[in-house]
């Protein structure tokens, strides 16, 4: 009875994908008047426990966000053939699992183009959160977008840390940003959860531009946040909740075409994005959708065609 969502270790208000997932569920609840169950994980060992509990309680579908859920789900899913599971950010090959993955590299490509066009110095920055392939994919897509606009451009990339604490270290995010500014960066893209808030803050203090991530963060520092790379986890959750137990299983890629990823344009950054920039980006977007432009996904081979510093 009713859908459920499992939030990963970051917690449901991580201002990153967990929060986005929560927003999607919330929107569904508000629009349909339905109720959903939710679990915030405390530890790794609880992943399976949480899935099993919800499945046994009759929740259907059960949505979970985060690539760390992949292995537990592949163990649990076969035990509950009548329950549909939805996993976001990973692929689990089972008949009752819907795998939703996002083409973050494509969205990042677009904001990379914007960054290159907005940059006066020809140097742009990237601050990642925890150093995992997913975040490298953000960075790599971004770098490709930058170089597409300005082949001479320099992309400075930093990861905040190697442990999950890296999602929550705005101070270090800020310091990294300062360093990047000193090296000439005048646009910095933060793909770092809570750490990104520090990035955006310093960018605003120093009078340079920043790019937010996951949800629309343009409002945080109007006039300083160039745009945000949207990753519509909320849409994925909302869709799954709306479809209910009969949600289509299999792998679903949320790319530009599905509006699963994209860049944010609103009143807070209207003055920063010129018509000309918008035009260029939209053209690229169309080309990617049409398959004319291939953005390399770091996750496929662990390499990036663009050298970052």
């Amino acid at each position: 009875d009713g859908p459920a969502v499992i939030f990963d270790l970051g917690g449901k208000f991580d201002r990153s994908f967990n929060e986005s997932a929560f927003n999607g569920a919330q929107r569904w609840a508000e629009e349909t008047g339905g109720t959903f169950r939710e679990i915030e994980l405390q530890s790794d060992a609880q992943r399976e426990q949480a899935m099993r509990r919800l499945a046994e309680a009759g929740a259907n579908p059960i949505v979970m966000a985060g690539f760390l859920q992949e292995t537990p789900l592949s163990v649990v899913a076969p035990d509950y053939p009548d329950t549909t599971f939805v996993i976001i950010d990973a692929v689990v090959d089972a008949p009752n699992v819907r795998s939703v993955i996002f083409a973050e590299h494509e969205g990042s490509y677009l904001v990379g183009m914007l960054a290159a066009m907005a940059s006066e110095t020809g140097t742009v920055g990237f601050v990642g959160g925890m150093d995992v392939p997913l975040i490298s994919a953000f960075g790599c897509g971004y770098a490709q977008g930058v170089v597409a606009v300005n082949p001479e451009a320099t992309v400075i990339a930093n990861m905040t840390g190697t442990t999950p604490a890296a999602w929550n270290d705005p101070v270090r995010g800020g310091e990294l940003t300062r360093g990047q500014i000193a090296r000439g960066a005048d646009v910095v893209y933060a793909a770092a959860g809570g750490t990104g808030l520090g990035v955006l803050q310093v960018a605003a203090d120093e009078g340079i531009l920043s790019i937010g991530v996951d949800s629309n963060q343009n409002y945080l520092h109007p006039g300083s946040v160039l745009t945000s790379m949207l990753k519509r986890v909320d849409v994925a959750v909302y869709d799954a909740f709306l479809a209910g137990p009969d949600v289509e299983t299999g792998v679903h890629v949320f790319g530009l075409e599905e509006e699963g990823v994209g860049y944010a344009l609103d009143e807070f950054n209207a003055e920063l994005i010129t018509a000309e920039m918008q035009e260029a980006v939209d053209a690229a977007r169309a080309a990617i959708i049409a398959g004319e432009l291939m953005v390399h996904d770091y996750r496929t081979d662990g390499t990036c065609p663009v050298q970052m510093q």
Partner: protein
Amino acid sequence: MDKMPKWADVVLIPLISVVLALVVSGLVVAIIGESPWRAMEIMVRGAFGSAYGWGYTLYYATNFIFTGLAVAVAFHARLFNIGGEGQAALGGLGVAIILLGVAWPHWTIALLAAVLFSAAFGAVWAAVPAYLQAKRGSHIVITTIMFNYIASALMVYLLVNVFRVEGSMSPESATFAEAVHLPNAASFAGFLGFRGSTPLNFSFFLALLACVFVWLLIWRTRLGYEIRAFGHSDSAAVYAGINPTKIIMITMIISGALAGMMAINVVMGEAERLVLDFVEGAGFVGIAVALMGRSHPVGVILAALLFGALYQGGAELQFEMPAISREMVVVIQALVILFTGALDNMVRMPMQAFFLSLRRRREAGARTPAE
């Protein structure tokens, strides 16, 4: 002559302290607008109300027994090992290396190998701070904390760059071969209602065995005698011909090995693969467990059980009462540590006075008729 009976010291006081901690926790729960009674009931039922609950409670307790023993052993030599976290992480590395590197025919042999490797890896991670303490006087509290951070960085590097499965995003190793999966409670205690999904596994017995081992070591062997002697007085130890360097090294190696073996429960027994950050604070909880358990294996088992129950009961609490977040559970744990570990004299002092006055009255009563 003691001020009060031993049972009061060992059982009554911790019990009252835990109750106090729960009362304060209840207040916090009430303040955020939920019913403390219902919360309490959910926690107790969640932890002990079913084979399912017991499975998780004992699974967590297994971790805490290992890390608690690790801290306890070091305590006996007056060494404060805050490095359980890193030592356990390294233990996991040892487990993964040996289980992925060799095609084991059967879990029993694999378990032996895993014990050896997890212990050895944990021991090495403890031996470096121990050596620096013994030879260079570097404060072991600080070096072990530093080694936690270093271990964490090392594990990330290895998981991301070495162990990660081709094409997978998760920083985790491949799943171990079917043959080395440890039997879980369903297979050896299915009759108690444990199901196939329970995380409780064979390592639980290993933990109990470790308790027996530690008890024998500390209270029945010459080495344990020397460890305790050194812990009480290093000058006296030198008088007796006990070599401080040797004791520091051996004690920390045993301590690190015990912490490392925690990985068997999580990595080999439950996850069946090496995942990032699988220790999840068990190294720190071990400190509380050792202190609460008065560094005695039986005390460690009881304290580990309490913390296992808090973990599992807390998880259920969150499942059932969405308003209670996982941080609320952290608060409850903190209060339990505070009341049982640091504020225990708050209970003990009045209890001592009480038992003393009881005794006085008894003695007075015994004297009067004689006169």
